[in-house]
């Protein structure tokens, strides 16, 4: 576990091998893993909401898809990563339950859409994803090779 850096909710972190980044128990939040394979710089952000625009408090950039991704890219660049070499993998955005019958898009789906459109806007290719459905996920990003390990309670584990 000592090699593991835990990224909390609405938090982000960057690292280099041999360290790994993990975020635990993603529900409708999204874990965004960015990796520059050339210099082996890894970054992860755990976003909660699609956009900072409607937010009352705009203090925490890592909380939103539209600010969290640029913020993470900036931190990775400080470690020598270059944006045009970065690749993205995302997981989460589940809909665990729904009390809100009148909203047509649930928050998990809105997070997925916002995340993808921000990646497009920043020209970062999304090379793998495990999103949506109705169960939680824990993810681990390996700084050595950029592999994203996705664990779930009942649906098994996969590598993307």
């Amino acid at each position: 576990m000592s090699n593991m850096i835990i990224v909390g909710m609405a938090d982000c972190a960057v690292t280099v091998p041999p360290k790994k980044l993990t975020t635990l128990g993603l529900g409708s939040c999204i874990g965004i893993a960015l990796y520059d394979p050339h210099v082996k710089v890894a970054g992860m952000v755990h976003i909660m909401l699609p956009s900072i625009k409607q937010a009352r408090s705009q203090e925490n950039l890592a909380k939103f898809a539209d600010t969290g991704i640029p913020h993470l890219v900036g931190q990775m660049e400080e470690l020598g990563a270059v944006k045009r070499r970065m690749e993205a993998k995302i997981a989460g955005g589940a809909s665990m339950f729904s009390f809100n019958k009148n909203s047509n898009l649930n928050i998990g789906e809105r997070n997925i859409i916002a995340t993808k459109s921000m990646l497009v806007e920043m020209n970062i290719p999304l090379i793998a994803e495990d999103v949506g459905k109705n169960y939680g996920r824990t993810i681990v990003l390996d700084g050595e090779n950029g592999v994203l390990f996705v664990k779930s309670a009942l649906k098994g584990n996969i590598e993307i």
Partner: protein
Amino acid sequence: MTKDIDHLTEFQYGALEEIGNIGMENAVTSLSKMLNHDIKVNIPKLNLEKIENVPQHVGGAETIVLGLLVRMEGDLQGYVVMLFPIDSAKTICQIITGEEDVDLTDDMNSSLMNEIANILAGTYVRSLADFLKVSLTISTPYSIHDMTGAILDQILVEMSQQVEHSLLLDTEFIVEDNRINGSILTLYDTQSLELLIQRIDEMTGSGV
């Protein structure tokens, strides 16, 4: 910024804890009657937290549990979340149905657990409403078999769309012979917290 967060007095904190305590005691008593076993409840821990810090207080984000959720509606908005370790949930079903091999995904057991959520949350919310003289109802329960973190995650996300902080009341309970344990969390948004404090101040006449 919510001014009340900075100005919560020790007395108000104590009163909020006491209100939680009354509700929890009543809720757990109803579970204890249903199971015909004595239940020990610890004093609730109260935390006013930025929403993104709540998971750290609950711990064990990856622990797989049976989570039962109910949304509080009316004058106060929030969620009541009951988390049972899988073995405890199975034991509850065993005690009630007399079945040896419990499959929690089976229809009868899952509706049984939903009923338990209904009773626990219903008692809690009713005693709260009586005490504070507010009108409160609860939604139909949801049961989710998943990681603790993932269950809380969506609740926190839903809340974070409206507010920045939540009041977290965390109670653990243990059935005397240690075969069942679980925790009950109550989460209120900051707007509801303001109303709660207003009521406390009115009742005690201490318009702080």
